[in-house]
């Protein structure tokens, strides 16, 4: 790490976002900025609070091009943001022409960049430790962000250690898909975290199906009041499902044996179930898993050691080159339980109570700490 040479004399710092970005909701930006400050508050005695009027220590602005400080932004890519060391005022400016995103593999992650910039606002220069938050280059979205020891040493050299009992929040929950905070318990899902099917509906709610029951997931685990009975709430839907996905038309498809059911929200569409042979020609019965890859709108089916790619716009919808081996998906196991492309852009594969995260840009199972596969009970069901 490297210290610039100035630091704040006070421990209670204030901030205000005086200009919000075009492409994000104000509340979402507020939450991400707060989380970014918390990265530093968790490992020091510093505290950060937002105030709506008067002078603040750190002013935050999303700006384009020249914005009054003689250091113009350069459009998408290149420079993403800059911030001023304490002696120069501590302000942080973000290039509003970047595609700022939250919990998504696409675009530029606001939380990570903000946490980096606030490191400058607190007195840290760039680190030559490549894994450090204060390294100058944007590494892409890290759903399971963990502050590096180099960053902790740097900030504690300026402001000391956190004197009271430390809070375990140096690891940011992978909200919106993956590691979760551990809220409501998954009940029987915690005894055996293997699942039948998992699907995100068109309303962005994610449901897990297992045996005769289903659960709605939240960012903290499972929603209160679950599990509920599949037969009671999903008219005509059988137990012990094979797989499910929601297509780009907003309809959710459930598969079991040789049949499939189509639902609009929680209501079964008329005429269902239908045979897989009829609706998904080229796809076998008794599939293990299915998901829609948003990158191309194609549906991927998995069974045993093979997978099929189904393109509803083509005739035939499954090319002759399929099935192919699942081993083409580096790091993925055979005989999956189900798969899901989550709202953060990552694809998650579930099997025997564990899950793998697939990075479709690198086209391999993600490497991260802790390593994949991870226990689905802990990271997804709040166990």
């Amino acid at each position, binding site marked *: 790490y490297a210290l*610039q040479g100035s630091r704040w004399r006070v421990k209670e710092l204030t901030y205000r976002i005086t200009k919000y970005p075009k492409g994000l909701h104000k509340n979402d930006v507020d939450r991400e900025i707060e989380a970014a400050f918390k990265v530093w508050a968790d490992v020091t005695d510093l505290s950060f609070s937002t105030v709506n009027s008067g002078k603040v220590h750190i002013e935050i602005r999303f700006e384009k091009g020249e914005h*009054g*400080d*003689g*250091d113009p*932004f*350069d*459009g*998408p*890519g*290149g*420079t*993403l*943001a*800059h*911030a*001023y*060391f304490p002696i*120069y*005022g*501590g*302000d942080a400016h973000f290039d509003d022409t*970047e595609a700022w995103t939250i919990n998504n*593999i696409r675009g*530029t992650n606001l939380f990570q*960049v903000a946490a*980096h*910039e606030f490191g*400058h606002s607190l007195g840290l*220069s*760039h680190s*030559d430790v*490549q894994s450090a938050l204060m390294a*100058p*280059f*944007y*590494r*892409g*979205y890290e759903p399971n962000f963990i502050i590096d020891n180099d960053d902790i040493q740097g900030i504690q050299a300026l402001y000391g250690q956190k004197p009271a009992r430390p809070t375990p929040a140096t690891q940011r929950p992978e909200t919106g898909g993956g590691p979760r905070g551990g809220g409501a318990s998954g009940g029987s899902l915690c005894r055996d975290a293997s699942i039948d099917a998992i699907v995100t509906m068109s309303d962005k709610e994610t449901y897990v199906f297992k045996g005769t029951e289903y659960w709605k997931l939240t960012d903290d685990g499972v929603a209160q009041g679950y599990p509920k009975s599949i037969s009671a709430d999903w008219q005509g839907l059988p137990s012990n499902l094979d797989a499910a996905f929601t297509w780009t038309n907003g309809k959710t498809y459930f598969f079991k044996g040789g049949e499939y059911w189509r639902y609009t929200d929680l209501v079964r569409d008329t005429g269902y179930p239908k045979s897989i042979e009829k609706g998904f020609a080229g796809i076998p019965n008794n599939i293990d898993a299915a998901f829609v890859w948003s990158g191309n709108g194609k549906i991927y089916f998995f069974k045993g050691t093979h997978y099929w790619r189904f393109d509803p716009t083509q005739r035939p919808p499954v090319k002759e080159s399929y099935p192919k081996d699942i081993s083409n998906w580096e790091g993925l196991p055979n005989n999956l339980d189900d798969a899901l492309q989550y709202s953060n852009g990552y694809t998650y594969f579930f099997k025997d109570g564990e899950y793998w995260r697939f990075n479709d*840009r690198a086209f391999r199972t993600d490497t991260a700490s802790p390593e994949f596969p991870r226990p689905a009970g802990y990271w997804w069901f709040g166990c």
Partner: protein
Amino acid sequence: SGVPVKYQISGTTSALVYLTKFGYMDPAVTNPQSGALISGDNVRKSIMEFQAFAGLNQTGDLDKLTLEMMNMPRCGVKDKVGFGADARKKR
């Protein structure tokens, strides 16, 4: 992730601008109005400093990996403050 939207830096001239902007070269030397002749050794030394900071092999050459790293999206704050005081001013 990390793939640049645009490939701004493609040769020595744009690399010099980059190295100057982020603190690896003296702005007084690279200022086109100064008329200073920049020595090859100076350029190589600056490139090597950048390569060391970016975790690359220190070849001193503007090779493919070095250009790729220079085109990565990044923070606009200088990596090194080696040429006089950092003249940034708030507002």
